Structure formats: structure tokens, C-alpha cells
């Protein structure tokens, strides 16, 4: 009933959760700067929240130290779907000046799919803003995709892939869900497995690196 409203809201109210994976605090300060009076991220509905359970976008800064790795992965797992991961600064991308250190186990890509990477040491608030805005768009697409997939499982068993992805339709025959009852839970993993390449492609195409200005 409120589908359209939910769709619209998904990108209008992205809440941020910030994880410091061993950052030197330079990026953290810039992230805070984004929410200050001058840049005012709240214009777009961005809000820093205190718990990963409330987050839509996880903002990661720092080169993923050995100490923080486990905590990072654990916290990321606790964020509810749909979620986006945004890396801030050069450290999560490459390790930056810390690269090669025995204390570093990066880059972030090793552990999680990064939707938007904002480069720079430290990136300007404007760049971070643009990256976050980008992530909000991706968030909406992800939601849509999950919804479609969900509908496919629950309804006829046909998994529709979003047209934006531009990939081939996955027919009902591919998904065993077609023979199962709508409530069948066994069908779900298979259906998702079938949807996987298409979905991955869809998000890959929207991924974008925002260069430091």
C-alpha cells in the first residue's frame, strides 16, 4: 500500500553508522564536518546513529588494522538489509601510507563489498557528501532489487530482475521455487542464488569512485 512512499523514503533518509577501522582521525573529523552547519548533511536526511541496527550506510575509515578487523566484520554483519558500505579516505582502499605494515590487514575490499569509495587523505567534506549521496541512490536500488526478489519467491516463483540492470530475465524454470508453495522456505536460498549474478551486476554498474577534489 505504501510501497511508493517506502521507495521514495529509502533514499531520502539514509542513516549513517561510522566505523573507525584504525583511522588516524583525519577522516573522522571530516565526517563530522559533513554534519556541521556549513555542509549540513541533514538537508538530505543524513543522520549519524549510535547502533549498527539503525544504520543504512556504514561509513568506514581507516586501513583495517589487525585489531579492528574482527570487530569491523562483526559490526557489518549486524546491519540490517538493505545496506551500503562507503569507505572514506585512501586507507580503506589501499592502505595508504600504512601499506605493508605488519599491523594492517587491508584493504577493506577483502572483507566486504564497498559500494562507494571516497578517495583522499583526507577527503574534503564535499567529496564525502557526494559519496554519501551516491550511496543513498544505490541503497534505493538495492531495496528495489530485494523487493523484486522477495516477490518472486513469495509469489509465482518468477524472479524479475530490475530492468535497470539490463541483464537477461531469469526464468521460472531456473528457480526451483516455481514448484514449491509460496511459503516454502527451502526455496528461498536457491532463488537468491539464481538471482545473484544479475543482482551483482546491477550494483556493480552503479558503483562509482568519487575522486578527491
Amino acid at each position, binding site marked *: 500500500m*505504501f510501497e511508493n*512512499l*517506502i*521507495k*521514495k*523514503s*529509502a533514499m*531520502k*533518509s*539514509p542513516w549513517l553508522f561510522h566505523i573507525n577501522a584504525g583511522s588516524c582521525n583525519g577522516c573522522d573529523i571530516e565526517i563530522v564536518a559533513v554534519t556541521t*552547519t556549513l555542509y*549540513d548533511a*541533514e*538537508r*538530505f*536526511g543524513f543522520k*549519524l*546513529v*549510535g*547502533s549498527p*541496527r*539503525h544504520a*543504512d550506510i556504514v561509513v568506514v575509515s581507516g586501513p583495517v588494522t589487525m585489531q579492528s578487523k574482527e570487530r569491523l566484520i562483526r559490526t557489518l554483519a*549486524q546491519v*540490517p*538489509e*538493505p545496506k551500503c558500505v562507503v569507505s572514506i579516505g585512501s586507507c580503506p582502499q589501499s592502505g595508504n601510507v600504512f601499506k605493508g605494515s605488519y599491523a594492517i590487514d587491508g584493504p577493506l575490499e577483502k572483507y566486504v563489498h564497498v559500494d562507494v569509495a571516497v578517495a583522499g587523505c583526507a577527503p574534503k567534506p564535499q567529496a564525502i557528501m557526494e559519496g554519501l549521496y551516491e550511496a543513498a541512490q544505490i541503497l534505493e536500488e538495492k*531495496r528495489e532489487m530485494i523487493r523484486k526478489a522477495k516477490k518472486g519467491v513469495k509469489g509465482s516463483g518468477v524472479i524479475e530482475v530490475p530492468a535497470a540492470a539490463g541483464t537477461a530475465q531469469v526464468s521460472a524454470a531456473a528457480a526451483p521455487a516455481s514448484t514449491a508453495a509460496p511459503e516454502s522456505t527451502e526455496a528461498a536460498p536457491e532463488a537468491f542464488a539464481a538471482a545473484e549474478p544479475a543482482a551483482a551486476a546491477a550494483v556493480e554498474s552503479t558503483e562509482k569512485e568519487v575522486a578527491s577534489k
Partner: protein
Amino acid sequence: MIVLKYLFNALIFPGALFTILAGFLLSGLDRKVIARMQRRIGPPLAQPVYDFFKLAGKENIVPAAANVTAYKLAPVLSFVSLAFIMVFIPIFSFSAFSSKADLIVILYLITIPGVALIIGGSASGSPYGAIGISREMVTMMSYELPFVLVLLAVAKKAGGDQLVFSLKEIGEWQAVNGSMLLHWSMIPAALAMLLVIPAEVGTQPFDVAEAETEICEGPLCEYSGAPLAVFKLSTCMKMFIMTGLFTAMFLGGIRTGFAGTDAILFVLICCVVTILCITTIHAITARLRIQHLFQFYWTYVTLLALVSLVLVWFGL
């Protein structure tokens, strides 16, 4: 027929739907105005609506340590009880459910959303939740004393040497004798009430229970998706109900005579009260510590309310 009327009252006006809409308006206004106070542009007015629907569309993770039933039912309890409280508060001359409902019924009903939050936070099994509920409960104890004193002062002022607890009768008294705020002896009580509202709603500087920077939003820490949306909605509704109670108690004398215009006027006054007590205080203060919060309410705010009660007692 009477059941239908009650259902209409509970669900649409002045119950759930009206309260939700007004709550969204107040909450959006609060965020917008505070942004303007800080010279920001701020979120759109409909931001709480977006927040609500975004959360409603998100995954709902129930932690394995939680008591699932209590965890799920707590937000609903909070929402439904709030929807019902509004039915008991007269909107100027219009009072829906019962003319007999009184201040004490409302006082007790208002504690239920807090209890629901406590049950939810406690049932989630989170250590942050445990600290959060402890602070929430202490906050409740803190503002209860001045709140009670304000209610009794209002009742005594309206009743004279008769017992009047009914909000409707208090409203009628104000229609005849002018709003409570026009009587100088009630001004300390009104100030105390204005300070009670932010603690009841849980906004800065009295948001110790849901401090997101220190205890990860306390009782709400483990909530996600639809239940969180309902809790956030409850906060919006609480804003409207508390400011509405203030309006009914202190500004009840104004009335246009038509239910429709009355409702609009009521919401407008609530907006002003929200900006006055929630937004302004939020903009100029930082979060208190829990023991200081308790001290603050049991000394200064209580004193304000007590001054009013004593003045009223001597017929002033």
C-alpha cells in the same frame, strides 16, 4: 453504533491517525527549526515521515538473546497506548471519548509508553539496553514529582474548594475565567510543565536514556526495521500528546466553536509550544548526566511547581 463512534475516535480523530499526522508535523518542525536556529537549511518538513517509511521497509533483525514476544509487542503497546491517550485529552470544546476521564488517568496512561520502551529494551538482552532502561526509569521518577504537582495545582485552581480532576471541566473553567496562563499564580507551574515535556518526550538535554553517542540509543539499541519505526513514531506522537496536554491545561480558554477549526488551532498552539520547550532547549543545551537530571527535577522544577501549588492554595 456507539462502538463505531468509539472506534472512529480511537483510530481516526482524535486518536491514532490525527495524532500520527500532528506528531509528524511537530517532529519535522522541531528538526527544521533547530536547523534554522543553527543557521543550517535542515531537513525537509516531512523528514520524520521519510524516516518512518524507510525504517518500515528495512529488515527487522531480532537478536538471538531477546525474548521475542516481548521484544515485538513492546513497540505496539507503546503506539496503541499513545493513540488512546489523545482520546482522553479534550481539544478545546471537543472531547471525544469520555467527559469523565481525569488528570490521574492521563498521568498513568502516559507512563505506559515509557514502560513499553523499558520492556522492549530489557527484552532485547542488550547490555546497552539495560543501562538505557535504568536511565529511562530514573528519568520517569525525576519528572513525575513536578508533573504531579503541576497537575494538582491546575486541579486546585480550577476547582476552588471542590475536587475537579476532569480535563473537560478544567477547560470549561478556563472558557469562563480565561486561560490558566493569564493567572499569574499559574505561571511557575506552566514553566515547570514546559520543563517536564522535553524529559517526557526524551529530547536533549534530557535524552540520557537514549543517548546515541554514549550508550547506542539505550533501549532502542537492538531494534531495527518496523519495530524501530514504531518506536520513532511513538516519540513523535508523544511530542504532540505532551504539548497537547499543556495546551489543554494552560491554554484551554481559547475556542472557536467549531471542531474543525478548533483542531487546527490546537495543532498550531502545539507547534508553538514544541518550538518553545523542545526545540529551544535542545538548541541551547548539552546532554545532562543522569544524577544531575534527577537533581534538576527534584529541586528547581519541583520548586517552581510547588510555588504555584502554594500560591493557588492561598487562593491567588
